[in-house]
């Protein structure tokens, strides 16, 4: 039996898709929200340190399914099949809420210069660095809407580098943990501007959900008390409560259906029982994340779009990037561990911009609580990797380290890309994503610089020994994946317009981090939320003008 026609079909119930579903359903449009993963709840926390969304040695807790979703990775070692729990796969998550179900929930606004990287720094050789077609002021009201509607805690009043804001955050910060108290005076002595990390995490009851109970099971886990905020416990339930939105889980989209004129008429997807379904819709909104959104467009072939939908000028899948995370670790001569989660608490933006000779920078903050197995990554390079010396170090240092790290804004690369593989198919027979490319050398240069600042901070705070961790040059993707369906005014050098509508077809939108031209020196989620609110607003204006109604 044919499925009932709807106004809007959204592919992917993550950060972008969740917000759009709520906005469209609230405006009265009929919406179907397709999600390939499952709907998990607070009861799925499980506190499993080896199987969660951050430490995946025994698998991902929140998708995608390990055995059904291979990708192909092309790197220095050649061409290989990789699986969701492996490094190089560039996984985010596959569940209702997407990455927001199990993330760290830092709630950053990008800075004004983050939208004007090319204008600020000029061309960077070998990079497709460019300005966004929108600016901070276009997003500002929607940043505020995201902060208040979803709920952000923190105190950013001492962040002198942020763009203009009309009001503060709706919730105060969590009370400071010990790392905060160690790092705050040190940053001030250095003349920096430390402040309380903004987080999508309740510090007090908000919107009917409880406050954070300060446990150590945070990033990578379900929040057991629902204090951490994602689309799964805010906008998606709100969308459903309108009666206009149906969420279908376990549904893998194969392609966007196009009519003779090349207009979208819906999607073809495999439902939870692996039956092929056709859902027709007036509008198709692609919100699968930078890898899967690009894959879906490239898997949508048509006489008019032989190289994939939106790909007339070969920009779909290009510029895949995320963040490079340099870190410094400091060893103290007293216990710094206090078991008060989430751990990350204090940040500076003194080195996001204005660094001599560098095209950008990144925020720095202390790291979330390190669980015992995660501590393996904090052991310095001069300690033997096994035997008595390694065990001695872990026993001695586990409770005495502080880690400072931060996302370096990356220089986008045209050849860092998502394609569809010509041979390898997933469980459903759909060609899989094929990832290739690497980081720009200047990104690593910036990373070395900010790691040095992180180390300075730890030394000033009294660390008796410090060391740095600088990432390698391999391709960035993962949870902060972005860039593959660039937003721009020129159809020849971008995929969607400033309203996130495909240049090629006027009833298909891409609303997720794929459209980010650059990705800021910050965790991207609040920008994904804000841009989704803004794009939904623009979409509804067009809809009310009947421009797209079939």
């Amino acid at each position: 039996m044919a499925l009932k026609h709807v106004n809007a079909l959204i592919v992917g119930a993550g950060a972008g898709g969740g917000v759009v579903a709520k906005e469209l359903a609230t405006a009265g449009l009929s919406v179907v929200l397709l999600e390939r993963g499952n709907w998990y709840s607070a009861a799925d926390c499980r506190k499993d340190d080896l199987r969660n969304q951050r430490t995946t040695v025994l698998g991902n807790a929140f998708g995608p399914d390990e055995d059904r979703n291979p990708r192909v990775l092309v790197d220095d070692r050649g061409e290989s099949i990789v699986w969701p729990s492996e490094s190089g796969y560039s996984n985010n998550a596959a569940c209702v809420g997407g990455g927001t179900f199990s993330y760290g929930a830092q709630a950053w606004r990008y800075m004004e210069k983050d939208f004007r990287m090319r204008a600020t720094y000029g061309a960077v050789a070998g990079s497709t660095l460019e300005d966004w077609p929108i600016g901070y002021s276009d997003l500002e009201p929607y940043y505020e809407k995201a902060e208040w509607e979803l709920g952000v805690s923190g105190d950013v009043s001492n962040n002198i580098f942020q763009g203009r804001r009309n009001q503060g955050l709706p919730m105060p910060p969590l009370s400071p943990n010990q790392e905060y108290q160690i790092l705050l005076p040190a940053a001030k002595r250095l003349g920096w501007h430390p402040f309380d990390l903004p987080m999508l995490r309740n510090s007090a009851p908000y919107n009917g959900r409880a406050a954070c109970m300060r446990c150590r099971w945070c990033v990578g886990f379900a929040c057991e008390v629902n204090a951490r905020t994602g689309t799964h416990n805010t906008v998606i339930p709100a969308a459903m409560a309108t009666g206009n939105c149906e969420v279908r889980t376990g549904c893998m989209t194969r392609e966007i259906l196009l009519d003779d004129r090349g207009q979208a008429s819906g999607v073809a997807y495999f439902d939870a029982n692996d039956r092929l379904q056709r859902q027709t819709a007036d509008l198709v909104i692609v919100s699968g994340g930078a890898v899967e959104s690009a894959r879906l467009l490239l898997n949508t072939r048509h006489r008019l779009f032989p190289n994939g939908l939106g790909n007339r000028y070969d920009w779909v899948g290009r510029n895949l990037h995320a963040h490079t995370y340099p870190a410094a670790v400091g060893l103290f001569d007293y216990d710094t561990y206090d078991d008060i989660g989430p751990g990350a608490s204090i940040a500076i933006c003194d080195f996001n911009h204005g660094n001599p000779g560098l095209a950008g920078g990144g925020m720095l903050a202390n790291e979330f609580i390190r669980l015992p197995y995660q501590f393996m990554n904090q052991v310095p390079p001069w300690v033997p990797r096994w035997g008595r010396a390694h065990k001695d170090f872990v026993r001695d240092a586990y409770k005495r380290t502080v880690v400072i790290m931060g996302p370096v804004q990356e220089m986008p690369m045209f050849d860092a890309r998502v394609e569809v593989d010509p041979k390898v198919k997933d469980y459903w027979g759909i060609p899989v994503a094929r990832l290739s490319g690497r980081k720009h050398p200047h990104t690593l240069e910036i990373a070395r610089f900010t790691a040095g600042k992180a180390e300075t901070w730890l030394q000033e705070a009294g660390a008796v020994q410090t060391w740095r961790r600088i990432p390698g040059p391999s391709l960035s993707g993962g949870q902060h994946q972005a860039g593959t369906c660039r937003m721009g005014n020129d159809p020849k050098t971008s995929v969607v317009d400033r309203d996130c509508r495909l240049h090629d077809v006027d009833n298909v939108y891409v609303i997720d981090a794929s459209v980010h031209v650059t990705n800021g020196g910050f965790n991207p989620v609040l920008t994904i939320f804000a841009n989704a609110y803004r794009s939904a607003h623009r979409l509804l204006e067009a809809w009310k003008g009947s421009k797209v109604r079939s």
Partner: protein
Amino acid sequence: MPNSRRQFLHASVSAAVAGSAISCGAGNGASPWRFFTAEEGRTVDAICERIIPADRDPGAKEARAVNYIDLQLTRAFKRYRKAYREGIAAVDAASRKKFGGRFVELPAGQQTEVIADIEKSSAAFFELILAHTRQGFYGDPRHGGNRNRVSWKMIGVPFPPIRGREHYDQPKVG
């Protein structure tokens, strides 16, 4: 992180979604293990203990890291069965060549020398068993290792793992 599950495309493109063909401990007779033969189990146990040796605190042997590895070789680590079978054989071959005996028969000092060799000569297997030993020692007891939470007691992680709440999974020791 070890990455030996990566399937290089020249080997098999169509096998993308196929499972492992290596059989599970069939015919391992009186083995107390699920995957390992009794002999393999003893060898892995000894390797783990050299990677994380007992001192004033228990080592990998007492934490039963080998049980973690064996159990996971029937679950998430099915893809590593071949690597273990071959890696264990390589360790014994290296032991015989260097000291004229099987790995488990050597004194601790000589075992350490053999592993130092293996770290270079069988790097992929070494990285695998290094990571798995750490997981079996420092990871959650529910997966078969870290018996009696010995590593968590060693580093002083407060327990229960969530302050004021105790409805987490109880450890299921091997």
